[in-house]
């Protein structure tokens, strides 16, 4: 081999290196063009709307657009003492515009949320609106009601100036901005959202653990049995997997009702008295049972696909080196299944945390989870910004779980089916 580098040329006379680079680039573009339609589709229909959820959740432009002049005038006001004449005059001007559009009521409601008592004084202002004389608006407004002389009310208006607010996120954690603009917790007996978050987490964790405890043995059995038996048993896992979620929920509703088969069985074996049948539905027990059965295939399938690759001779080697079957299992087999455990638990946990159909049907009053609350605000109260805020809080939690999982197990170790 000669040490001097001689440029290799293609038949066109272009150096091979450049020609290859060109071909590479062409291939890259080709591959990208194939992916582009779906990528664009997902970005436009899915990723952007998730971003829109964010802007919606912090959006507070309504009031900003209602009082444009006032906020402009307030920019120079330090917010410590009563604002100058200019602010009063602009406020009156803005208010007159709103009154013409018949939107002053909305302003009153919105400001009343910020500081109690706004609605009344704005109504009073509206009645006297046409009696204003030119000049010295400050004095005239302050004449209308003593609250207009209270600086706190003007501070409340100033607080609503920014076009965005974190109020919805605070509401999702049972907190709010009080009249002085501090973050405050709501009263103890009204902290519903925190209960829901905790309940959602609790149900997701318990269901994940139950699925793991039940899924691990059968995944192992499926992996070690000869094909002809395991294929048959695999149907027990796959048939529920392919069956409609609502069908499975319906069957649990039949099984778990008070006159249902499970209770019949308990009475028959004498576990409970016939007139004292336990409630197994419309409480947490029902939710746990039904959700575990519904999500179990998602635990078994990744576990199975990992266990299938573990050679049985490893366990034999462990035993032949003096380990008891338990030690061999714990030191050899179990560590090898960790990617499967990770994938299964992650899958079940993520599915469980966003679940609401089954809990809503079999969970009764305790079956309301954070997802139900999101759906409720989307469909009933139409408070879409609050629904968005809670959705994004949930999404943040889920992403955090992914992140932790990636640190612990590595996201590439996920194996599906």
């Amino acid at each position: 081999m000669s040490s001097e580098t001689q440029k290799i040329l293609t038949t066109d006379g272009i150096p091979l290196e450049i020609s290859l680079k060109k071909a590479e680039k062409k291939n890259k573009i080709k591959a990208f063009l194939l992916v582009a339609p779906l990528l664009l589709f997902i970005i436009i229909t899915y990723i952007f709307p998730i971003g829109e959820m964010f802007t919606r959740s912090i959006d507070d432009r309504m009031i900003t657009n209602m009082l444009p002049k006032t906020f402009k005038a307030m920019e120079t006001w330090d917010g410590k003492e009563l604002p100058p004449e200019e602010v009063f005059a602009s406020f009156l001007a803005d208010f007159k515009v709103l009154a013409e559009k018949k939107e002053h009521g909305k302003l009153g409601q919105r400001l009343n949320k910020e500081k109690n008592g706004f609605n009344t004084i704005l109504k009073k202002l509206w009645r006297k609106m046409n009696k204003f004389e030119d000049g010295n608006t400050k004095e005239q407004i302050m004449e209308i009601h003593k609250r207009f002389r209270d600086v706190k009310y003007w501070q409340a208006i100033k607080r609503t100036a920014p076009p965005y607010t974190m109020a919805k996120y605070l509401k999702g954690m049972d907190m709010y901005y009080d009249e002085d603009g501090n973050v405050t917790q709501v009263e103890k007996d009204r902290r519903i959202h925190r209960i829901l978050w905790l309940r959602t987490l609790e149900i997701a964790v318990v269901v994940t653990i139950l699925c793991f405890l039940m899924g691990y043995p059968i995944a192992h059995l499926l992996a070690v049995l000869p094909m002809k038996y395991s294929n048959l048993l695999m149907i027990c896992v796959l048939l529920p997997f392919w069956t409609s979620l609502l069908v499975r929920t319906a069957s649990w509703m039949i099984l778990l009702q008070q006159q249902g088969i499970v209770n019949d069985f308990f009475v028959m074996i004498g576990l409970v008295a016939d007139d004292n049948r336990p409630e197994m539905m419309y409480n947490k027990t029902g939710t746990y049972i039904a959700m575990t059965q519904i999500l179990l295939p998602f635990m078994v399938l990744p576990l199975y696909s990992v266990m299938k690759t573990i050679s049985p001779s490893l366990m034999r080697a462990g035993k032949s080196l003096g380990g008891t079957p338990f030690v061999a299992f714990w030191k050899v087999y179990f560590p090898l299944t960790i990617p499967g455990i990770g994938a299964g638990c992650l899958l079940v946990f993520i599915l469980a945390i966003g679940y609401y159909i089954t809990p809503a049907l079999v969970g009764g009053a305790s079956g309301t989870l954070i997802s139900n609350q999101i759906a409720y605000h989307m469909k009933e109260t139409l408070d879409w910004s609050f629904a968005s805020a809670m959705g994004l809080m949930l999404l943040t939690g889920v992403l955090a779980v992914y992140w932790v999982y990636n640190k612990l197990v590595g996201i590439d170790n996920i194996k599906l089916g």
Partner: protein
Amino acid sequence: MALPKYTETRYRIWHYLYLSICGFVFFFLIAPLFVIFPLSFNAEEFLVFSEGMKRLDPDAFSLRWYHDMVYGTKNPWGLAAKNSFIIAIFATIGAVILGTVAALGLSSRHMPYKGLIMATLISPMIVPLIISGVAIFFFIAKIGLAATHLGIVIAHIILGTPFVVITVTATLSGFDHSVTRAAASLGSNPVNTFMKITLPLILPGVISGALFAFVTSFDEVVVVLFLAGLDNTTIPIQMWTGLREQLSPTILAVATCLIILSTLILVTAELLRRRSERLRGINR
């Protein structure tokens, strides 16, 4: 799984305990599905086994709930089934075309930013459904397609494509790219090569992806609840409403039909998976 003769008693006990645990779990998984069958033939209106049924008295069984499902007054099921099938079929077609083409690009070794793009494409699968539902609703409502079939189809394409992308890329991972080069060297254009060489080879992956997409759409209730109007009611919505209001035996008749459908899908999916494994030479 026979134990060797020399097994100590405590391991023997442990082994049988393990087998019975497994037996219980398998029973737990499959038994609930079989409760629905007999009860859907109940002649009475209650959702418990009547005395007659326990005696296997033929009079205690009837097809009245199936009759009710098909011919019942103000019957919502016919419309729901029609809608469900139309939506699921179009959503599947959309998801398969978009997903397969994208998978072809993704499995090319020249693809830049593969990880990031893959994560984006499968994100609808890994984000909790309720969040996807809210986001998709905002989009569909904005383009004015709420309460239309097309809107729901688009939503279900979004939810279905990740499955197609995953199954087809998995099939393509065992794909020998030299056959497409051979076809090209013999003068075939890329489209022709895809239709005649690549597609037949990856077809099992494409079909099982299509089955996933179909089932996802057919069984989807969270997003449809946001999007559907009165004219777009689907089977899952009807079941959801029915289960919330009153558990009627008609629902069980519908559920039985759905179980039969899922059995068919399961069998197809399994056959395809085995065929695909055989082709890829995975089967030992």
